Structure formats: C-alpha cells, structure tokens
C-alpha cells in the first residue's frame, strides 16, 4: 500500500472523505455511501450528516436522527449484499466458490463475462490485486460504465479492465494470457472455445461456468470436452441459513396448565432487529432454527475444468 487508496484496500483507523462506507442499518438493510462533506444520508433511522462520519473510527456506532447505525469498512461480502442492483447478481456463497474454483490469488489474470452488477467482479479484483488483473466483459454499455466507475472509486482501477464485448461471438479481450475464465452467459458453449484461447498456454488454467439450468450444463460439458478441457466437474451449492433463538422447553404438566402461548416481550438487540422474548420461569435452551423459512434452494450449477499446460 504505497499510496492510500480508497477504503476497499486501505486500513486507516479513521474514515476519510471520499471513502466508500457501508452504513449498516439492520441485517437486511445496508447502504453503500461515498462520504462527502455537505451530504446527508436518509434511511430508516432518519438522517445522518456525512460530516459526522468523517474522522470516526471504522465500525463505530453513530446516532442518526431516529436511531443508530454502524459505519463499516467495505468488504467483498458487504458490497455483494449492499451494491446497487442492475441485474441478477451472484451472492457470496457462489462468489466464494467461484474464486476457489478459479484458483484465484494475488497475481492471477482472470477473464469474466458478463460483468452484470459487478458483484463477482469486485470479489475477483480484490483477490487478484495488486499484481494480477481482471478483464471483465459485458454486452451492456451502461452496466460496464457503471462498474468501471465503481472500480475507480474503490481503488481497483489499476487491476481491472471492463469492456463492452460479446464473448460468445468475439472472444475475450486477451488471448493466451489468462489463469482463469469465468462464464455467466446464457449459452456458455458458444464462449467455451474462446475461453480455451484466452488461457495462457504454457501455464494452463481454469474454467468455471455458472448456469441455472441443467440443459445449459449438459451442453457446456460437451463443449468443454471438445475444447480440450479435462477434469470437468459440475457442482451445486445449497446454503442453509439459521437463526439462533431461545426456546422454552416445557413439561407435559406445564403445557396442560399454561398451553403453548407465553406472554411475549419485545426487545431490540444490538443488531437493531426486534426480537421477541418470552418472559416466563419455564427453562429455556438456545437452539438454531432454519430461518427464514423460505430460502434460496438453487442459484446455479458450477461447472469447472482444467486446461493443462502445453509443452513449448
């Protein structure tokens, strides 16, 4: 860290003007904001003047006009959850897996298509920085420009190149250069031969393709084999989120006497969310329950493969 780039990769103790901060309102509501004197953030808990943010410590609790919020340092995960949505995005569980399947690390050269809202693009750029590079491709000019601007503000300009380009017809921005290629396109099989070309021949590389439907996976697998990839494997992740609650544990006698409805107390916890608590002398245990009841059960299949190095 020679210069002091904006907040994504700087570790100053205190918040400076120009930093991107994540204003944590509740678990479900986070607002990414660039701190600028004279501006005011409006949210659920009222107004918060940016002046009050500057000079504060990262992670500090601040009072807004109608409640309090926390000012967090942006991370890849927080950005994924808070970013301005322009398209369907890849969430943290998939982003994490894709980085791992690409063998991404500082110094890696990675090609991506499409850019979309830039959720994964940020994750890749942060991982390959400061010596690697991300080439991200999208057919949509507006989205590409928006992400380019974000990269700049977030201090990722030097490690990223975002281009408007249809990789299914025109291939990737670089050839014989990439350590990994990630595809999230409707017809990955069209892009796979180009992906093979973009990989650095002497070192070999990795290919990862994300597809919601099995028919896309079937065709992508065929195309990967035809393009010379090996160790082709398709995996699917199904995360399950849990909530920790305090639960009564009553005896049959207590149930006979009281029923199962206890008087409830409402309390706001440190997270800002309302929790219901029963007030009763009946013993309680702490347990984890699957929550929310309805959860994502499928995002897409991840098909990954290896291009072996070619002797020169």
């Amino acid at each position, binding site marked *: 860290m020679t210069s002091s780039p904006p907040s994504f990769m700087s570790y100053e103790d205190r918040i400076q003007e120009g930093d991107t901060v994540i204003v944590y309102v509740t678990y479900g509501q986070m607002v990414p904001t660039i701190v600028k004197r004279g501006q005011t953030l409006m949210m659920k808990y009222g107004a918060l003047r940016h002046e009050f943010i500057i000079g504060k410590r990262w992670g500090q609790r601040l009072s807004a006009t109608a409640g309090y919020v926390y000012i967090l340092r942006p991370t*890849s995960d927080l950005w994924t959850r808070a970013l301005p949505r322009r398209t369907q995005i890849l969430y943290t569980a998939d982003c994490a897996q894709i*980085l791992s399947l690409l063998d991404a690390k500082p110094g890696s050269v990675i090609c991506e298509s499409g850019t979309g809202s830039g959720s994964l693009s940020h994750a890749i750029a942060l991982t390959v920085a400061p010596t690697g590079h991300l080439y991200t491709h999208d057919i949509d000019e507006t989205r590409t420009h928006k992400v380019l601007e974000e990269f700049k503000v977030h201090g990722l300009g030097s490690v990223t190149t975002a281009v408007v380009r249809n990789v299914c017809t025109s291939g990737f921005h670089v050839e014989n250069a990439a350590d990994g290629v990630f595809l999230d396109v409707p017809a990955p099989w069209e892009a796979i031969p180009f992906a093979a070309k973009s990989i650095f021949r002497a070192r070999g590389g990795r290919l990862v393709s994300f597809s919601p439907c099995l028919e896309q996976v079937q065709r992508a697998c065929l195309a990967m084999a035809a393009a010379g990839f090996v*160790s082709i494997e*398709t995996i699917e992740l199904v995360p399950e*989120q849990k909530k*920790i609650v305090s639960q009564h544990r009553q005896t049959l006698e207590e149930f006979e006497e009281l029923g199962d409805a206890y008087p409830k107390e409402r309390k706001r916890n440190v997270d800002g969310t309302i929790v219901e608590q029963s007030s009763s002398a009946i013993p309680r245990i702490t347990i984890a329950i699957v929550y929310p009841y309805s959860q994502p059960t499928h995002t897409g299949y991840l098909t990954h493969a290896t291009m072996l190095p070619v*002797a020169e």
Partner: protein
Amino acid sequence: METEPAETSQKLIKSGEYLIVQKIDGEQSRIVRFTPKQKILIEKLKFVADSAFGKPHGLFEVSNNQCLPMSVDRLIEELQLQEASVATSSIDPEVTEPSEPSLDPRVVIAPSALKLEPEQKRQKLEMDAVLEMKKQGVSGQEMVAKLVEGSASFQTRTVFSQSKYIKRKAKKHSDRVLILRPTIRLLAKAYYLKDPDRLAMLRADQLALILQMAGLHHGKNVVVFEQTLGLITSAVIERLGGTGACIHIHRGAVAQSIPCVHSMNYDDNTLSTFLPVRIKCVLAGKHLPYDNNRKAVNGDDDNLEEVNGDKEPEKIEDQDLEALARRNDRLDREKRGIDLINDEQIHSLIIGSRTVDPISVLELLYPKLAPSGTIVIYSPHQNILISAYDWLSKRQTINLVLTDQMCRVMQVLPDRTHPLMAQHVAGGHILTGIKVIDQ
C-alpha cells in the same frame, strides 16, 4: 509467478517440489514430494520421480517405472481407437440403423475427457465426426455449434442398456496419471477424502466460504487459530500474496502439523506474511523468549518438558549458524505477530476448531480485533457455534450469521444426468460476524 502476471516462461516440474498425483478414473489424490530416485506410488501404479523432472505439469503415461508426458489430444484419439474395436464387438440391435454423420454430426463426448464413458456404436461414429471436423480445420466454435444442434443421443436411449456397457469398459486407462502443481483446492479435496477427521471435516467449499467471509485479500492482517492441518493458514497465506500478515497461533515451540503450508511450494516472498505465534505467548499477552538450553537452567520444568515434547531438534552443543538463523527468523516473525495483535491491528480473526472451544480463543483474541473487523468461526459441531454466537452477541458483534451448506457433485452424462449417488457429506458450520464499537 504469483506476483508477476507478465511472466511468460513455463513452470516445469523440479526436484524437491510437492506435487499432486492422481490416476485417471482413480479415487485417490496424493500429495507427494518429488525427490531424486523416489518411487511414486498411486493406486498400484509406480514410477520414479526423476522421470517427471523438467517436464511441464499435466498428463503422463506410465510404463517401465517411467512417466512420459502425453497430450490430451492423443488421449482422446487413443480412446476413440479403443472404442472402435469394442463397439464392433458389442453391436446393440437397437442402434444398428445407419447413422449419417455427414448430415447429422451428432457429437457426444462424455463430460470428462478423462473419464470417457462412451455410448456404444453411435458414439463411436460421433467421435469420428469430431476428429474428422478437427482434421478439416473446423474451428472449435463451429464444431460446438454443430455439436449442440443435434444431440439426440442425450434423449433417445434408455439408461440401463448403457450402464452395462460402461461397466465392461471401466478402468481401461489405468496407466495414465495427472501430475499437477498443488493448489489450495486440490489439497483441500485430497486431505478431506484421506482423513476428514483430522481436517475437522472442513470441505473445500466451506473453506472457500471462510476466506470470502473473512474479507481476505492482499495487505490484510489476519489471525488464524486452526486445527485443520494448516489448510486454513495456507489458504490465507496464498490470498495475502506477500503483503499483510497471517498470524498463525500454534501449540508448542514451533508450528507443527501444518502439511498444507509446506506442500504449496511457496516462495520466500509469499511466505513472508506467515507469522507463527506460540499459544504460550498469546496466553501471556507478550513475546516470550525461547528456552535456549537443553537443561532447565531457569528451573522452568514445564517449558523444558514442552520443548522435549515437541522434539525441538536444536541442542545447545550442535547448534550451528543455520539453526540460529532459523530461530532468529522465528523469533522475529513471532515478535511482528505479537506486536500486530497488541496494537489491535487485526482485520480478521479466523478460528477453525476441532477440539478447542472457540470461546477460549475469542476471550484472548476478540479484544484485539480492530473495529469493523470480521470474525469467522468454523466448527464441525453446531452446538459449539451456538455457544460462540451467544458469547459474541453479548459483545458488540453485528451481522452474526450461522450457515451450513450442502455441496453436491452432478454426474453429467448423456441420458444419465443426476447427482452422484453417494458422496462424502460430512462438514461443518460457519459463524460470521463483524465487530463494532460504541462511541
């Protein structure tokens, strides 16, 4: 290479390197250090390490205790020839109607080129069509277009007639091995399959999630306490890429039982962020000197015992300059690590626990985490994390989430697409949160 993307020279296998060895269609994945004259054994296949030196990583053919580089194209062509004879001898009356490869080039290549499980005669013809197209210089792009436009064999035959055939064909390519540079992903998989218990059941997909939730990238200062054979530590070192700090809290006098750090062949620059710190120092809250004496000169029996227990190789009488330098390097790294902890310059705290209660680690290290820093705790036991959740929620932690995830491998084969019938599923749970402060 990790830090020089412009580098164009090829990395070749060299003596002393740790390598991943897999048989094609094999179950095992072994991590072996290739040293001269060493015999490499993998599922009954044997070759001498020397025969791989100087060759690029990749596909090899083993014969006469030697391994010879082999191109993937050759493998595919060869398979095709083998199929021809087998297919002829097993013509299924159902599929003898003449195919027209010219009009309808129904190309079906089994998903994994290294696990080719061909489909009877039809597929042989289809494979012919691919090779013919290749010869005619048809571009990959065009070929794929043709390939997907008519993949009727994905649809029209029953599953069971094929399976029988495939069984007959299994384990044909038993003299082919992959010799690959270790990656965190491959190491995680190899150790998980070999000894999930000692890895605290940590699956590769969960490791990936830990790294991402920790907000890990170059320049960060991370404290790691883990009981996962060095896997988490090694992954952190790789993602730091030479800047930042991976403070590894370890038992005894020197960091032990971390094969996953050693087998990644890291260069000195990458390893510069690896700062092992003794539990003893963390408990004391400060840097402690090593006991330089074999004898308990200061009467600290406990310390002596531990040094012996850890089989500390240096003895005062045969200490040479190199050993002294190593010790000084260790002390220097440890000092840097402890200073970062005491200065509360820690951006992430990762705990990957097997037997140790995470709360006992949190009590010592959570106060050292910088505000807005992330905490990630992995445990194979949900109950342990529920207690940790309780502990953290009373100490200004927000964004607390407990997750679990299922990871399934799909079999994608013509007419036989389904999740694998059985898989290693043992795994753990991940608790994450962000530390905040009040004023």
